[in-house]
C-alpha cells in the first residue's frame, strides 16, 4: 500500500460512529445531579442565604478573575510603580513594564501565556473567561494561546490582534509601527473595518494607519518591498506597486494576493484575480465574477483552499515537498 492508497482509505473512514449502547442515561444522571443540586435553591427560604453566598462568591471570584499571574523571567519588571520580585499579580488596569534587561511571563487566565520582552509596556485591560484583553503600548510580546478563536485580544496603537488559536510575536512602537509574525495557527489584525488574516509562517507589517498585507516568511526581498510599497507608499503609486507585486508573486504568495484582491482599486481587481487564479486555481464554485465583486462566500471559499495549502507547506517544511498550486505532495 502506498501513501496515496492509505490517504484514500483514510478519506473513506466514516466521520460518525454510533456508540454501541445508549450513553445518554449516565450523562443525564451526571448532569441531573448538578441540576438537582440547584433545585433546592429555588425554595423561598433559601433565597436570602443563597443570595448572600452568591454575592460573596462573586466578589471573591471577581477579585480572582480580574488578575493574572506574572513571573519575572529576567531582571525586575515593574507592575505600576512596584518592582516585581519573583512573581506577582497583574490586575485589570495595571501596567507591566520591562526595561532593557528584564522580561516577564504573564499567564493569560487559563488559556495561554504571554512573554513580555525587554523595553515593553503592557496593560491588562479585560480579564474575563469570555474575553482576555491586553494593551501593548510599545515593545514586543510572544503570545501562545490554546483556546477557541476570539478569546484573546491585544490592542496596539495601530489596531487589535485577535487570536484565532495560535502562537505569535507582536512588536510595535508607541506610534503603531510594528510587525506581526505568526508561528502557529492564525491571527487576525483589525483596524476599523480593515482586517488582515495572518496564518502560521507569515509576517505582516503594521503602520499607524493599520495592517499591511501578510506575506510568507521566506518571501523574496523584492516581493516584500513591493508589498510594503503597495501598502504604505503614496496612493498615486499603487497601480505600479500592484503590477510589481503581481509580477513577482509565486504560488506560495497566494495569501498575499488574496488580501491584495480586496485592497486594490476596482479596475485592478480583475488583474489580481487572474494572477491569483493562474498561481492557485480557485476551488469549485468560486467564480471570477463573484471574487471580483468581493462576495464573502467566494472569498471565504478561496481563502479556505489557500490556507489549507499554505498550512501543508508550512508544517511539512523539510519533511515533504508540497506543490504550492495544489497542496499535494510532490513525488
Amino acid at each position, binding site marked *: 500500500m502506498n501513501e496515496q492508497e492509505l490517504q484514500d482509505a483514510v478519506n473513506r473512514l466514516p466521520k460518525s460512529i454510533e456508540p454501541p449502547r445508549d450513553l445518554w442515561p449516565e*450523562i443525564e444522571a451526571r448532569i441531573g445531579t448538578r441540576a438537582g443540586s440547584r433545585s433546592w435553591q429555588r425554595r423561598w427560604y433559601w433565597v436570602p442565604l443563597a443570595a448572600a453566598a452568591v454575592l460573596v462568591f462573586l466578589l471573591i471570584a471577581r477579585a480572582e478573575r480580574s488578575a493574572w499571574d506574572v513571573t519575572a523571567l529576567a531582571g525586575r519588571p515593574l507592575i505600576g510603580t512596584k518592582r516585581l520580585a519573583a512573581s506577582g499579580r497583574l490586575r485589570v488596569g495595571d501596567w507591566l513594564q520591562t526595561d532593557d534587561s528584564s522580561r516577564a511571563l504573564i499567564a493569560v487566565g487559563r488559556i495561554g501565556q504571554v512573554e513580555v520582552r525587554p523595553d515593553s509596556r503592557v496593560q491588562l485591560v479585560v480579564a474575563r473567561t469570555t474575553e482576555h484583553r491586553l494593551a501593548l503600548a510599545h515593545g514586543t510580546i510572544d503570545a501562545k494561546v490554546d483556546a477557541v478563536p476570539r478569546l484573546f485580544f491585544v490592542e496596539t496603537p495601530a489596531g487589535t490582534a485577535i487570536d484565532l488559536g495560535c502562537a505569535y510575536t507582536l512588536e510595535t512602537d508607541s506610534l503603531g509601527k510594528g510587525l506581526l509574525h505568526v508561528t502557529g495557527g492564525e491571527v487576525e489584525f483589525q483596524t476599523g473595518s480593515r482586517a488582515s488574516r495572518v496564518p502560521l509562517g507569515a509576517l505582516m507589517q503594521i503602520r499607524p494607519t493599520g495592517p499591511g498585507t501578510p506575506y510568507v516568511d521566506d518571501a523574496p526581498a523584492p516581493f516584500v518591498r513591493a508589498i510594503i510599497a503597495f501598502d504604505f507608499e503614496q496612493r498615486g503609486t499603487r497601480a505600479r506597486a500592484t503590477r510589481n507585486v503581481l509580477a513577482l508573486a509565486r504560488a506560495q504568495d497566494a495569501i498575499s494576493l488574496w488580501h491584495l484582491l480586496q485592497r486594490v482599486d476596482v479596475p485592478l481587481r480583475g488583474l489580481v484575480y487572474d494572477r491569483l487564479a493562474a498561481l492557485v486555481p480557485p476551488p469549485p464554485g468560486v467564480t471570477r465574477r463573484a471574487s471580483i465583486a468581493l462576495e464573502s462566500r467566494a472569498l471565504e471559499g478561496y481563502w479556505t483552499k489557500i490556507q489549507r495549502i499554505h498550512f501543508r507547506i508550512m508544517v511539512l517544511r523539510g519533511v515533504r515537498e508540497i506543490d504550492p498550486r495544489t497542496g499535494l505532495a510532490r513525488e
Partner: protein
Amino acid sequence: MSDDLVARAQAGDQTAFRELYREHAGRVYALCLRLTGDGRDAEERTQDVFVRLWDKLSSFRGESAFSSWLHRLAVNVVLNERRTTGRRERRVMPTEDPDSVVGAQHAAPLHGSGLSIDLERAIAELPDGAREVFVLYDIEGYAHGEIAQLVGIAEGTSKAQLFRARRLLREKLER
C-alpha cells in the same frame, strides 16, 4: 435546528441538550474511539465530553460552528484525561516502540467493512503518541502546530509521529 437546540440548552433545557447529544454523539464517539483506541474508554470519554459540554455551553458564543466548537472541546477532554491520569500507560501497549504493536490486542469495536475495518483496527493498534497525531492530522485535519499545542509536544515530534504512524499502518495493511 442545532442553533435553536443550542440556545435552548444554554438556557438549561435538558430536553434540548438530549437532542444535541443525539445529533452529535456519533461524531464525538468516533473521535474518542480513534483517539483512545479502546471502546470502553471511548464510551467514558464521550460521556465526559457531554458532561463538560453541559458545564461549558454558556461560553459558546456562536463565533464558530457549534460542531467545530464541540469537536475541539472533545479533543481537549480526551487529551486532558490522558495527561492527568496516565491511564494509557496501563493499557496493553505500554511503550511507544513501534515494534511492540505487533500482536497487540484492542477492545475497539469494528465498523465499516473490508479495508475500513482493517484500517480502524490498525489505527487502534498504533502506539498512543503516533495514533493521536495520525487521528488529529490525517483524519481530523488539524495542523502540526495545533497538534503540538493540543498534545503538548514539539511540532517536529508531531511530524515524526505522523511519519511513523503512516509507515506502521502501511506495513500492517500490507500483511
